[in-house]
Every structure is written in C-alpha cells, then in structure tokens.
C-alpha cells in the first residue's frame, strides 16, 4: 500500500497544527496556574522520567487509544477514557435535589445550571440527574451498566493540567512509571499486543517497562509499501534487530509481531449489531478497539484520550455538545460489542480535575478540584451514584471548588482488582490507603 500525500493530508495537517497551538496555550496556562497555586514544578520534575515528559506533548491531542494485552486469567478488559482539560462534573452529573445543594449551586452559577427539562433524573438515587448529553447512554443505566461517582480527586492534585494529569497517571507517586504499567507488571508477563495511540506515544499511565504498541489507526497499522516484499521485509527487519541492546529493538519486535494480528483483526472491521458511530477520532478509536476486542486478541488494558474539556468560555453549549458526542461514541461502542461481549469490558471515564463552582467572567468556569467519574459496561455492581457527597453550601466548598470526598485511586484500584484480579494494589498505588466504593463485582 503506497501512502501518498493528498489534499486531505494537508487538511489534517492543518488541524494538527491548530491542535498543537491549543497544546501550547494549555501548556502555558499550566505554567501560570502553577504559580498562582504555589505549586513547585521542581518537586515534580525531580520525579518525572524523560519518558513521561515526552508524553506531555501529545497529552492534549483529541483522541488517543492505547491498549495492553496479557495472558491474565480473567479475559476481562478495563478501558480508561481520559477527558483531557478538566471536565466540569457539576454540569455533567447534576445535584438536582434540594438536599444535594442545588439552590446553592444555582446561586453561584445561574447560567450554567440547566433547567429541569434538560436534566435526566437518575432513578434510585438521592436526587441526582445527568446532562441531557448522556441520553445515548441512558439505556445502559436501565440495564445496570452505568454508574457515576461525584466529587472525585486525589490529595496532591493541583489546578495545573500538567501536574494533575501526571500525578493521576503516575498513581500519585514520583515514579517514572504509570499506574497501568504497574498493573500490567503485577498481572505478569504480557503478550505482544499492547498499546495503540493516536498521535504517537502512549499516555503516561502506560509509561514504563511493559512493552507498548501505539497506532494512529488500526487500518494504518500495516507494513508500508509493496505487498510482494512485505513478509520478507518483516522477517529481515526482525533478524536485523536481534541481539541489539536498545529499547528500540524490543519495540521493533513488538510492533512487527502485532502487524499480522492487526491486519487479521482489521479484516473483520466495521460496526456490528446495528451500531452507528459518530464521526471523529474518539469514535474511530473506539471502533478500532471494538474490532480488536471482537477479534479476541487478548486486550486487557486500554486507554483512550479525548481532548477539549477545558471550558473557560461559553461552557454550556460546548460542554453539552462534548458530552453528547462522547456519549454517542461510547454508546455506539457498547452497541457494537453487543450485550454478551461487553460483559467482559468495563470502561472508566475520568478527568484531571473539576471546575470552580462559580461561573467566571466569560460564561465558563476556571480550574477547580473535585470532579466526577463514570463507569459503563460489564462488571458493575449496579447502576447508580456511588460515593460520599457533601451537600453544596458556602461551608462545603474548598477554595471555591467542590471538596473531594471520593478518591480516584479507590475507583481505579477497585476496578483493576475486581475485573483483572490484579491482587494487591500496593505496587500500583503505593502508600494509598484503599477504601473501595463497592461499585464493581468480580464476576
């Protein structure tokens, strides 16, 4: 297959450039934020290995998928979706009842609290509702496959995108490895198929010695050039790298081994069960992932990134649209997998921090603390809202933010422990006192 530059490549390139500029702006915003929060970058950089720093450049790209596969016994898959930019939990999972602090919320952000008609009340909860953008996912709530956790954060996370993402992805340590990499290490030796990433490098959560595989897309993950010499070329390259003492040598073997698997899986690409994916990188990444899961290549851990959640201006329209489009993609993914296959797939959606409760001067919100997580797919105890919540009030806020009452590592830890049988979490979230929310089940 000969790859030639086309006008479409030019358009994509232009978009990539613009996306890069957003990264630059976000990077600078992080810098400024770190001063106002009194955060010392010094401490963090001391603990950050070069690999982690490398990952930063593409951290805010629109979509990114990485998956890891191993021979672990459960045949289950955990997918971590990271909403980059700091998603506003309060407009996604709304404390709709008076008892949850709805009046106080409305007083601080009158233009950002939806009318009741635009909130979908969640049955069986103490008065929670969700953004209407979740409509596509609500059928999963009725089948016990959708759960939410409000007021999530981890002590040590600041209002800097850079620091917060790194801190969460490293599992709260200063180690150079990510929490998912350590999960894979704890699960034992992995197989060939590991990481798939839009934009080049795997996210920090997968940084570390476990072999990584990154892809722009499943259909591009192929040997370039004339098919007539493909197999002979692959054989030759593998032999040329044998015995070379370099990280490159390991990656080359992993990559070349994966080509055949990727190509085989790609032959059965295409949505099943009547699923219709929306356009966009996130959806196409999930579609690729569904193809790989159906092909049973042994994916155990996957990460997908979605950018654009940094809603400093005109939040209502932007956030609702983002929520709707992410929900549509996730709903298509679940439909694509079908009710049986998705029993072995648990998706955890997280973000680096929540946003200030009060609206800012631009009808948006600035960086805050407590946010929300949501989980979907198989392996949940039941649908619902989990965790502790302090009704919103002047006293309940912390520096104008939702005070975190639920710990992100408790959620992530419980999911990999119960779904992947990872055993002890001591090496995955070192020093963290584990208090599961009992939202997942082992079977």
């Amino acid at each position, binding site marked *: 297959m000969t790859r030639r530059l086309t006008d479409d490549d030019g358009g994509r390139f232009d978009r990539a*450039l613009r996306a890069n500029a957003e990264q630059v702006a976000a990077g600078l915003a992080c810098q400024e934020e770190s001063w106002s929060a009194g955060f010392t970058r010094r401490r963090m950089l001391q603990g950050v290995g070069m690999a982690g720093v490398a990952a930063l450049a593409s951290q805010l790209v629109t979509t990114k998928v990485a998956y890891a596969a191993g021979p672990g016994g459960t045949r289950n898959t955990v997918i971590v979706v990271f909403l980059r930019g700091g998603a506003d939990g309060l407009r996604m999972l709304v404390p709709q009842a008076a008892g949850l602090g709805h009046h106080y919320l409305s007083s601080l952000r009158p233009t950002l609290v939806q009318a009741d008609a635009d909130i979908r009340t969640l049955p069986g909860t103490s008065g929670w509702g969700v953004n209407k953008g979740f409509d596509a996912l609500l059928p999963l709530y009725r089948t016990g496959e959708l759960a939410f956790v409000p007021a999530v954060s981890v002590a040590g996370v600041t209002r800097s995108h850079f620091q917060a993402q790194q801190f969460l992805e490293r599992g709260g340590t200063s180690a150079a490895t990510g929490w998912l990499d350590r999960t894979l290490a704890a699960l034992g030796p992995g197989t060939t198929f590991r*990481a798939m990433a839009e934009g080049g490098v795997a996210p920090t959560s997968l940084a570390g010695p476990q072999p990584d595989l990154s892809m722009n897309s499943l259909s591009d993950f192929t040997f*370039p050039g004339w098919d007539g010499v493909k197999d002979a070329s692959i054989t030759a390259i593998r032999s040329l790298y044998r015995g070379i003492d370099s990280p490159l040598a390991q990656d080359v073997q992993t990559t070349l081994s994966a080509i055949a698997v990727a190509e085989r899986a790609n032959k059965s690409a295409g949505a099943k069960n009547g699923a219709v994916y929306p356009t966009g990188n996130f959806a196409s990444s999930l579609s690729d992932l569904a193809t790989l899961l159906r092909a049973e290549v042994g994916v155990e851990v996957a990460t997908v990134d979605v950018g654009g959640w940094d809603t400093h201006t005109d939040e209502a329209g932007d956030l609702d649209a983002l929520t709707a489009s992410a929900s549509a993609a996730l709903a298509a993914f679940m439909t694509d997998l079908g009710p049986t296959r998705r029993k072995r797939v648990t998706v955890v959606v997280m973000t680096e921090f929540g946003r200030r409760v009060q609206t800012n001067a631009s009808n948006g919100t600035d960086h805050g603390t407590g946010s929300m997580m949501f989980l979907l797919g198989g392996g949940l105890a039941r649908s619902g809202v989990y965790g502790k919540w302090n009704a919103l009030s002047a006293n309940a806020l912390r520096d104008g933010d939702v005070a975190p009452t639920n710990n992100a590592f408790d959620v992530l830890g419980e999911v990999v422990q119960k779904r992947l049988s990872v055993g002890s979490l001591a090496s995955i979230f070192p020093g963290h006192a584990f208090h599961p929310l009992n939202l997942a089940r082992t079977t």
Partner: protein
Amino acid sequence: MDVNYAGVLIGREQTAQRGRHAAERPGLSMAAAQAPAVGALPARLTTDQQYHLLSRFSFGPSSASLSQLARLGPAAWWDGQVALGRRYPIYSAHPRIAAAGPLLNRSPAQVRASQKAAGNEYSWEMMDQLTLVTLGLQAFSPAQLYETVVDFFANHLNVSNHADDQTWIRQTMDRDVVRRYAFGRFSDMLVASARNPSMLRYLNLADSTKQLVNENYGRELLELHTVGLAARYSEVDVKNSAKILTGRTVDDNGNYVYRPEIHWTGAVRVLGFSAANTRAAEGQAAGDAYLRYLAQHPSTASHLAQKLCVRFVSDAPSPALVAAVAKTYLANGTSILPTLKAIFTSQEFWRSRHAKTRRPAENLIASMRILDVTPAPDIRKALDGMHWMTANMSNAPLDWVPPNGYPDVAPAWRSSSNFLTLLMLHRGLAQNWWNDIVLAPKNTALYGRTKPATSGAAIALLCTRLVGNPLTPAKRGVLQTFLGEPASTPLAQSRLRWYLDHLVPLILDGPDHALR
C-alpha cells in the same frame, strides 16, 4: 575500532585507565597519552568513523559531506565547518532555503504589517516559515555543525513555536539569540535570551512586575537554562531570581523594553550572587550581572556539559567526560565551540558509535541526506512536505510545548506508530513516492563508479554506502535471504535488478541507521 590517537584527553579517571588503553592499542604511545587534555583526534578516519562523526556533528552523512570529510580529515573538517558557520551566519548558508523564510529577517512590527497586508494579521505564516527554514537547513545546509549547535540550544532555551502570543515575535529568539550566539559565548546567549520578547512572553517574564511577581522565568532560568536542580537552590532563591529580573517586558510593537517603574528594588541573593539593587534605573544592569554570574557558575558548566554529552556522545556519558567538558567551558569563558571541541576530541566520543537513537525527525533527515535527495523545485511545497512528515511523528522542530526541549534519550521515543511511519518514509524516499517534495537519484547510483560483480558484493557495498560498514556476515546473510538468491549470483542475473528499490529502505530500517 582501529584508531591511532595522537593523544588522549579527558579527566583523572580515564587517565588512570591509560595503561589499559595503551595495552589494548599498540598505536597509542605513553608519551602521547600524557599530552594535554585537549586536541586528541584520530589521524585518519575509517569509513565507519566518518559516518559516526557526520551522524553527530551533522544531521547525517551525504555523499558530498563524506567526500569532503575524507579529503580534509577530522581536524580540518572541524575548522572548515567553523569557518562556514561564521562566514554564513543565521540563515545565509543555503540561500534557496533562506528564501523560503522572507519574514524571518523582519522585526515584529514588520511581520505584523506584512501579514496584515497579505490578508491576515494573525496568520501563522512567519512561524510556519521558521519551522520550514529550520527543517530545510538541517537537511540541506552545508554548515551542518552550525545547525547541530543551533538545534541543541533551540531545545536548551526552548520556546514553543506556533502559539498565538508568538505570532510576530518567535523569529527573534531564533535569529537574535540562538543563531546569533551559537558559535559565541553561552553567557551572551543567555543575556540575549533574557531580553528577548519571544522568551519573555513564553515564560511570562513580560507579565512580571514588582507588585505581582511571576516566578515562571526566574525558576526555569535556574532549573533548565543554567545551574539545574543539582545546584540545590532554595525557593527563596527562586523568588529572588524572579524579582531581580522584573522590569524586563515587551512593548506594543513586540520589542523588548526595560521599564524601571515595574522593577522590584531591594537586596537580592541567589546562590552566591548578591546585589543591593537599590535603584530601579540600574535594575537591568543588576539583572545582567546576575545572568552572567549564572552562566559562569560551575553548576551551569556541569549541567550544560551533561546535556551536550547526552546530545553528542551517549545517553549516559561518563562523569569524567562531563567533568572535562565542564572544565573546558569554564576555562574558555563559556565559549561554546571550544566546549564542543572537547567532546569532539574525546576518546569517549570516538568510541560511542551507535550509542544514540535517532529521534524521528533526525532519522527522516539522515535518510534524506544519505540518499542524496534534493528538494523539489517548488521549495515551499518541499519544506511543507517535510513539516508534515516530522509533525506526523510529533517531532517537528521547535514545536515542543513544555520549556525543557525535546527529550534526547532513547526511551522517550519508544513508539510503534513512529517506527511504522519511518518504514513508510524510508520507502517513500527510496522509491520517490513524493517527487513534488524531494527527488532521490536512481538507487543504482548508490553503487558508485564500479558496479559490484555479484549479489553478495552489492549487498556489502550498499550497506557500506548507506550505514558506513558492510555489516556482519550474519546480517548480510539476512539481506541475502531477503533477495532469495546466493551471494555468488552475478549482478546481471540478480533479483537486485527489481528488488534494489526494496533493499535500500530495508537497510535504512535496520539498527545501523536507526542508531547514530
């Protein structure tokens, strides 16, 4: 490696090992080993050593640069590169590439006016031109040593290109700071960077005032640009570092200006530096004195020496080499070229073949150079294509976002998608898929004047031509198997008649090209 050293260099630890080296190397006399710690070079270079040198102090060997090096020898090659860089500074070493960046020689106000006249004041045209010219010079400029030094310091004093607040000013950092002082003194480069609108915006010094100090630049100056974390400065040092530099800002025309009315006054101490700093009118001079103090600090010498050795020698250079390079830096008043020459003339450098992994963009450019490609007649289209190729691997020059520059060690670049992209680029270049971007000569030209007689001889010749050595018999056997014919097959009957275009990229895919 069979080397005849005229002498050896470096610090105590290596001197202590001298006897062992001498024993291993009959050509190395004890008298030579006791020579002063600078200026030792192999008298003559093997082909592999030529490739080594040109893969480190240039963006990769080309036919032209190889024959020039073979003619001159390493010492005269170095002097010639220094002369070239001095004679043709900034962008002038390759006029055709320079012509692709007309806005780069303009002032911020002129860039703004020019872009406005072209229809979009806020266009990224100037920033695009900077990326394009940088890529073009890395690939095609004859002043290769200059480009490698520029690349190092552009990353050391990183300012991310392609950001809205850099729209009319980013060229000033490249032109007036990095390129201007690349062959000069680091102290001058540092002082210029602390008066550069692009840097001041990027690290927020432009916003820092005595009422509201922004510590960003003051901290990165210590952590990244000069002494590094190993100097163990305190948070008070960081605050003082920021305070003494207040007043440095950017005017409405995008030019640097010092405004005494926003300069913080009062006594300042940072590490061993102190200033009374009582008069705002003298605040800029006090800041310059602080910057020059930092540039000459032993911790800065060590920090810079470590980074230079990581760039030019290996991911884990020996402490002895780093110490020797740091010593040279201080002994030469922070002059960059003598510091680099200490690396160039070190045994450790000449023994570090293949100790570095090429970053994705370096692999692309080295592939272009070794295949002797030329940019297509539409130079803008050619450079746009190269920009697309490097950006596709998240490695377009000057586009690293955080202030620490692109990482320079192998583990940071582990990526299967980049590897597959490089396989695609090797094939595209060797098979001329993109002849509106770059043109490669026919691959039969790689044989040179005398065509090899057999398939086996052709493989050995091609490997030597492309990666500097004929590879081991086992690896040549791998390529022979790829061709599917015995080594003794006469070239006239060889499958190379059809498979040459597939064998060439295969050699570039291998570790002898991926590592430098």
